[in-house]
């Protein structure tokens, strides 16, 4: 279980008040984060992944504080919208880097990489380079790497924004399965309310550096009385 407790952060030199986050994610759950640009969604992911250091507060994974850990030692995997893969390395190597950055793989690890690529339907393509793949396939490779890394927290930063609706739905379904199979916790940032509907039972609405609402996804998207939410969704 991921607990974000009174996490405060303020950009150096910014005049806006400090951001403040409280949020819990249960094992196997994907929580979607929606909200206007600049509201703090990416900041929250940055704090969890360690690219940003909080001014105060805690991030607990299964009760253990992780907010002071260095980026590489955090139990976190991230999928960005782009540049998840190194263009000059083949798929196998791109995934294998997730297991061991020095690429000295044991036989066991080699088969793990192969299995992950198979799980995502990429086994025929492992010698290819990312440039030869479609956008959806590239993100699948990134997910294969998430799989081999076996980290508990998965952050998806508009990971599927560039893909078509059907492909998006398919990949989000895949993420859901991966997360629940492996009892991971996931945060998914998206601008598509439909993504949240597919991915999450619960969705958080982030606004002005706060979790302004955290509710059942359907309830939040369709029945919220908060003017900010309705404004964001264009249903005001």
């Amino acid at each position: 279980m991921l607990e974000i407790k009174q996490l405060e952060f303020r950009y150096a030199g910014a005049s806006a008040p400090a951001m403040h986050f409280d949020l819990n994610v249960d094992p196997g759950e994907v929580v979607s984060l929606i909200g206007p640009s600049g509201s703090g969604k990416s900041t929250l992911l940055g704090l969890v992944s360690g690219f940003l250091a909080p001014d105060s507060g805690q991030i607990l994974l299964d009760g253990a504080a992780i907010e002071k850990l260095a980026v590489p030692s955090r139990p976190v995997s991230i999928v960005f919208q782009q540049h998840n893969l190194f263009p000059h390395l083949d798929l196998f190597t791109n995934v294998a880097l997730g297991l061991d950055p020095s690429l000295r793989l044991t036989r066991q690890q080699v088969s793990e990489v192969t299995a992950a690529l198979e799980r995502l339907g990429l086994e025929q393509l492992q010698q290819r380079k990312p440039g030869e793949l479609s956008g959806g396939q590239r993100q699948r490779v990134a997910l294969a790497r998430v799989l081999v890394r076996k980290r508990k927290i998965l952050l998806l930063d508009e990971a599927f924004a560039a893909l078509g609706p059907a492909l998006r739905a398919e990949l989000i379904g895949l993420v859901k399965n991966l997360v629940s199979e492996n009892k991971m916790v996931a945060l998914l940032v998206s601008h598509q309310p439909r993504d949240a509907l597919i991915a999450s039972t619960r969705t958080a609405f982030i606004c002005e550096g706060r979790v302004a609402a955290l509710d059942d996804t359907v309830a939040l998207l369709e029945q919220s009385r908060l003017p900010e939410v309705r404004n964001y969704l264009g249903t005001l």
Partner: protein
Amino acid sequence: MTQLNPRAIPAGIVLALVGLIILAPLAGLVNLSGLPGYEPGDLRFWHSSYIRRVLSFSLWQAFLSTLCSVLPAILVARAFALQMNFPMRGLLLRLFALPLVVPAVVAVMGVVSVYGTGGWIPFGKSLYGLNGILLAHVFFNLPLAVRLLLPQWQSIPEHHWQLGDQLGMSAWQRWRYLEWPALREALPGVMLLVFMLCLTSFAVVLTLGGGPKSTTLEVAIYQSLRFDFNPARAVVLALLQLVLCMLVAGVTLKLQRLPEVEITLTSGSRPQGLLQKPLDMALILAATIYVGLPLSSMLIDAFGGPLLQIISSIYLWQSIAKTLFIGLSAALMSVIAGWFLLQYSASLALAGQTNRARFIDLAGSIVYVVPPLVIGTGMFVLLSSHVDVFNWVYPIVITINALMGLPFVIRCLGPALRQNHARYHHLCQSLDLQGWNRFRYLEWPLLRRPLGLAAALVAALAMGDLGVIALFGTPDTATLALVIYQQLGAYLIPHATVTALVLLLLCLGVFWLLERGIGGKPDA
């Protein structure tokens, strides 16, 4: 929780070393007042009309030279960028690296062969003065600027070209919306580099300048340190030159815009109108002729010289070995130092601290304008009382040459490294891809081309160096550049032209070796 940026440490060490290597000798020189025969310098020269005249001439000729070199270079680089496929394109680009390594004396002779009284395009006596200075400086710097600007076109993403095509942009609009924004990242830095090269130019100005009217600050420094033996004054003038350059840098770099577009490697053909190709080819031809004429006059002279006699001399081969050793060592050192500086400045840029990032780049580049004569003499003062300087000639010569090469490394490697950092740094962190692994799997494959160009430039520059090596004397074998000078000094002008050809070919070879060896095949 504030963590020290791990890139700050090696960069800090490099900066500290650079600072030490520059400032300690200056301090050492100022401290010389106890020397026999030394009279405390009259430092009120600030009021002298001589210095004021020298100052304004230095700036004026450097300014004009920069304009005359860089503006045409933009057109030529654009022509090269748009015409991706024509015979000898690669060879021409490599040819464009050559003028930089020609020792100034030899280049002056080449320029005179072409534009002198008996030349192919005679200017007559009007060559000597600003005309000659500009002709020679453009010969040196236009090709360099072309080489440094060309990668900016490659940084324009393929889909931007397609977008422009789809929107039916005219050539001018494409320039305005696609090319100029990409160029703006590199242009100020390149202009600053060319400005520094011209400001500190010495033999060209003295020989083609026509007389002491055309005295630059660099000459005044040389005079103070050598003929007047007034180190304090030389130091003050050197600092003046440094401050001037920093002012110019401040203004120039304000114009710099870091690109918001992202770089993708492209190789497709460029959309172009009917006239574009003939126009571009004409530009390339004109630039090639301009650069090629003095070079071919050297070639013709050399083939008239005692080729066999020189090539069969053991002495020549020894000096080739020494030249290679100095060139390659300086390149290695310079590339390593520049690498650490750029890593740090890239991480600062990613964190939004662009001003600090620029400062780091600037600090690495600006050392170029402290004359090697001053650094070298100062180092000498510091070292000679502690160690036997004879054993230190090569380390010192290599170090100073490496320092002088830093601005080239920063120009060549900077944009690509920054881009790479911005794109993959977070991913690398999250994958724990660090240090050697990060270098091996990410940086080397993606950065080897600019790395190769940087190393090649520094090596070639160090191989053609005369200023530093001449200063320390040559206990044993002379480098090729020095041999050329010795031959010129011994009436052996035909021999010197042959040696100059050998140096040119050697530089071409090293360039090819480093650019290909480090950079890989062009299509890789």
